């Protein structure tokens, strides 16, 4: 357990550093690569915590995101210019960071220890019910899938609806009719 914890903290520090570089760098390509590195660290953390389903999904989504960002975003010119540092803004950031860290301290003090989640007690819990009834009730060997598509199928339907609506929104922004109409109005 300690080896897993050390690896997890190393990955977390790596991801935080990658995110900071992605925010602070002036080069768009470097920022995209750093975002990809942070996502890859998250996939490795999922593997360390023995969640291969999540790790697989995170890794392929990260690859696609990096490819799309590099192909679509980076080839364009970067028109952003540096904003001057403001003392008030810096003070507000430091204040909010301090409040956030204080809230984190109180929250983590109240959390259960690592590796002993709330649902894994000896008393009959929801996770225990899933493990006990997953195979006989659904016939699926992969319990993650049996929860996603059988016990929690309604949630997955909502999730699919969210993706559908967001893609429809993207099409509505990028569709040809609006572009041609906009061009003819000009």
């Amino acid at each position, binding site marked *: 357990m300690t080896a897993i914890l050390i690896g997890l903290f190393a990955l977390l520090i790596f991801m935080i550093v990658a995110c900071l570089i992605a925010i602070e760098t002036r080069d768009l390509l470097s920022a995209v690569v750093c975002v990809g590195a942070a996502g890859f660290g998250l996939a490795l953390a999922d593997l360390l915590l023995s969640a291969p389903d999540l790790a697989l999904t995170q890794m392929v989504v990260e690859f*696609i995101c990096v490819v799309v960002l590099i*192909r679509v975003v980076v080839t364009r010119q970067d028109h952003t210019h540096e904003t001057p540092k403001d003392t008030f803004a810096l003070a507000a950031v430091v204040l909010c960071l301090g409040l956030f860290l204080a809230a984190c301290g109180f929250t983590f003090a109240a959390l259960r220890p690592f590796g002993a989640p709330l649902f894994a007690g000896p008393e009959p819990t929801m996770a225990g019910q899933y493990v006990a009834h997953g195979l006989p009730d*659904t016939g699926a060997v992969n319990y993650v*899938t049996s929860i996603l*598509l*059988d016990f929690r199928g309604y949630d997955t*339907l909502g999730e699919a609806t969210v993706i*559908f609506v967001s893609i429809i929104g993207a099409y509505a922004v*990028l569709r040809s009719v609006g*572009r041609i109409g906009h061009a003819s109005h000009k």
Partner: protein
Amino acid sequence: MQATSESGGGLSPIVKTVARWMAGFILVFGLSVVLYGHLTPGGGFAGGVVLSAAFILVVLSHGRREVLQILSERAPTIYDGLAALAFLLLAVLGYAAGGFFLNFLPKGQPFQLWSGGIIPLCNLAIGVKVGACLFGVFAALAVFRHLHQRSA
């Protein structure tokens, strides 16, 4: 190389050949992740993303001119909508057996491909839907933008 890619002609023949070979393997891997989602790690979402990755690889290597000859602009939208309707239909068909999202098909033997009732079918619908979605976004951003700028 960048200049030919920008004009829509694709990359060099070496890249095209390797991409053509790899795209088939990536498609098969994505299909296996989707179809075996109830037996091994993976499932509809991850497999769908892998499926879209195969198409994105072909677009990146062959350029949008070749891709637009074999694939219409409406294809991702159509597959996206059909797969979403199929998933909803599977959910609503549960009413025939008693309830929403009821697993009405026979469960079958565990560890076999045909087990889990409606779960493999749901995985297939979600895989097609996610793959069409992501490829549609990539196509709308990278391929069809130039098409519209030319036609407009």
